[in-house]
């Protein structure tokens, strides 16, 4: 038991040391509220380049803090959102933006989903139109059988 207590004490020291390490400087928001809001909106769209699928808004990594500072500086210098993005892409490549560029190589990515809806929708409408012609009226026997069946199933499956 005493050994456990000693161990806990040692760990407390280790933890204290770990916690006392100089942390990255906390983010200093821009004095202009509108500029700060723009910066924060941008953070969510920018990928922390060393992290696994985290935006610089979310990442605790040091480089994410550096990137946030960079974005804030550029915005404070009066650059537009688009210009800030372009600067980041020049520096880190397309990879840095969570919004992939629209170019020949990404057409499928961007337009595929909508093309699928339109294409499949068109096929469905075309087939439905063609098939309507094939509907045959029921014979008298079939009508009677149907009436019996629906009366029966209405009991069980009202609605």
């Amino acid at each position: 038991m005493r050994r456990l207590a000693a161990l806990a004490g040692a760990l407390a020291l280790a933890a204290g040391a770990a916690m006392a390490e100089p942390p990255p400087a906390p983010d200093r928001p821009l004095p202009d509220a509108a500029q700060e809001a723009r910066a924060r909106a941008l953070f969510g769209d920018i990928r922390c380049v060393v992290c696994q699928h985290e935006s610089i808004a979310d990442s605790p990594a040091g480089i994410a803090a550096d990137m946030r500072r960079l974005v804030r500086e550029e915005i404070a210098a009066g650059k537009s959102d688009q210009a800030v993005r372009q600067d980041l892409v020049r520096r880190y490549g397309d990879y840095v933006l969570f919004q992939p560029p629209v170019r020949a190589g990404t057409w499928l990515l961007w337009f595929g989903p909508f093309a699928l809806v339109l294409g499949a929708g068109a096929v469905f409408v075309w087939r439905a139109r063609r098939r309507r012609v094939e509907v045959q009226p029921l014979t008298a026997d079939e009508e009677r059988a149907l009436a019996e069946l629906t009366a029966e199933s209405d009991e069980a499956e009202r609605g």
Partner: protein
Amino acid sequence: MIVELGAFALILALVLAGLTTALATAGRLRLSPVLAGAGGGALIASAAATALAFAALIYAFAVSDFSVSNVALNSHTDKPMLYKVAAAWGSHEGSLVLWCLVMTGFGGALAQARGLPFGLKTSSVAVQGALSTMFLAFAVFTSNPFARLDPAPVQGASLNPLLQDPALAFHPPLLYAGYVGFSVCFSLAVAALIEKRVDPAWGRWVRPWALASWAFLTVGILLGSFWAYYELGWGGWWFWDPVENASFMPWLAGAALLHSAIVTERRGALAGWTVFLAILAFTFSMLGAFLVRSGVLTSVHAFAVDPERGMMLLAILGVAAGAAFILFAFRAPAIRSGAAFAPISREGALVLNNLFLTAAAATVLLGTLYPLILEGISGATISVGPPYFAATFVPLLLVACLILPAGPLLAWKRGDLKGALQRLWLAAGLAVVAAFAAFLLFEPRKALAAAGLGVGAWLILGALAEVGVRTKAFRAPLAETLRRGKGLPLGAWGMALAHAGLGVFILGAVVETSFKAEAAAAVPLGGVVSSGPWRVRLDAVEVIEGPNYLAEQGRLTVMPVEGRAVERVVTAERRFFPAGGQTTTEVGLDFRGLDDVYVVMGERARADDGQQAWTVRVYYNPWARLIFLGPAIMALGGVLSLMDRRLRVGAGSRRKMEVKA
């Protein structure tokens, strides 16, 4: 000893699963009920053996047997018992045994199911046995959870402390029940293709499995999302992370499946398409397993990354899905397409539903795999994240939601759109009013957010209107309405609930995303951070000792900026786990009605005047409660539908068969 028993049981389960396929195939070919029954029995026995192996693994974790390499790597004596047990499915090897347990267990239930015709049942048991054989072989040959270590270490290396959380302890079992539950739909689909029998009865048999799996998956994803929300300390609940996407694809395909199965069951139409979706849903499950475990994608969730295992999983995926889709390509043209229907009809609405759900699933698939494929082809690296999905997935979903409430009010075969819309005008009017009210009331004014809120309200009101129409609410005496409400099948209630739940989720997601506020500052004791309508004061900080961690615990008071809401005290912690050297955050959550005030204790810092200070981050997340309430309501709707008499295996089907004969 018990560990060796577990290892033996796992091998036994593999042999029994192989035997299942052999016996069931022989039984089917010779039309022998005895052989077929033995096949079903072998699958049940395989499930029992897998359960035994899993129990042995849990035992090894419970007693911290560090001579087992899996336990040594993933557990620690200081860990509370719940997390020791949960660690059994927290690693790649353990979770694979869980995967196999669900697969053989559901297979055993399939073998026990009554009412299925001989051919379909025997074939589906054979397919389920084959799937189980592949995954059990994967476990036994490449991922043995019982491998021993010599010498055994004195202490374990602990589980990632981020995962030491009740929501996450139950997240994998539920997720896997969903993922792997779809394997039964897959087996039934392949069996139907083998038997060349895809008819309304088949739709009825496949639907309960799809419903149950989908409901499990909903709750599984919900728990994972809730965990990410309060454990990662960023206030985010969905990141469009590849691994989240991997769980979302089978969910979307499963949702499409359970809708299209209705059309097959009730009208005999879309049969081929339903079979395709049943194959697709489990294919997405396997794809997800491959993505998570192979390390081809970078993600915060990726675990046990091992390229060799990845290749094995890819091989299983290729064999299972490849065979199923090839069979589908050959047999699908022969599937009779069932009764014709006009574009404007219940069937037509469900086709639209399927169109949008599949397109949504395709979007998630594209967004997840495109960076990988593009890099492979051209070497260009891109990232696909939230802005992409906001521009593609979200509009698809919203258009689908606009159409949704009309669907249940249309008649089968040929619907009366005007009539349906007449019944919905009140709901539509109220939804528009809600959108306008939201536009005026929420600061800052955002037109898109208001439109999104209108869509959420439209879904909830539409579901109410649908129930109202069916119970003649306000148009018949109350007693009549109550009688009709009681007589309404559980499936109808389930559908209304699930649709309303989607609306509730949309309300929460829209408001949280559009109007959340965050603030961070380094504050000394007594310092205040304001975010949205709330102020948070740091009252005290003390170092506390947990079972396997040390924590700096801040006590903070949440107060309104103005008005007279009660003050509440929350605690937020920053935990340090000496065993693995990691630091985690325990956020302080103050529930304020539908809103959350979300408080995170950060690192120590120095205030401007040199005083000791702590970084305190405060998020104001309006309506965040609805984000998690919505999917829970959806899952409840699924469960209600599942309890509907009509779906109970055996019930009602006997009479159906007589009619057919």
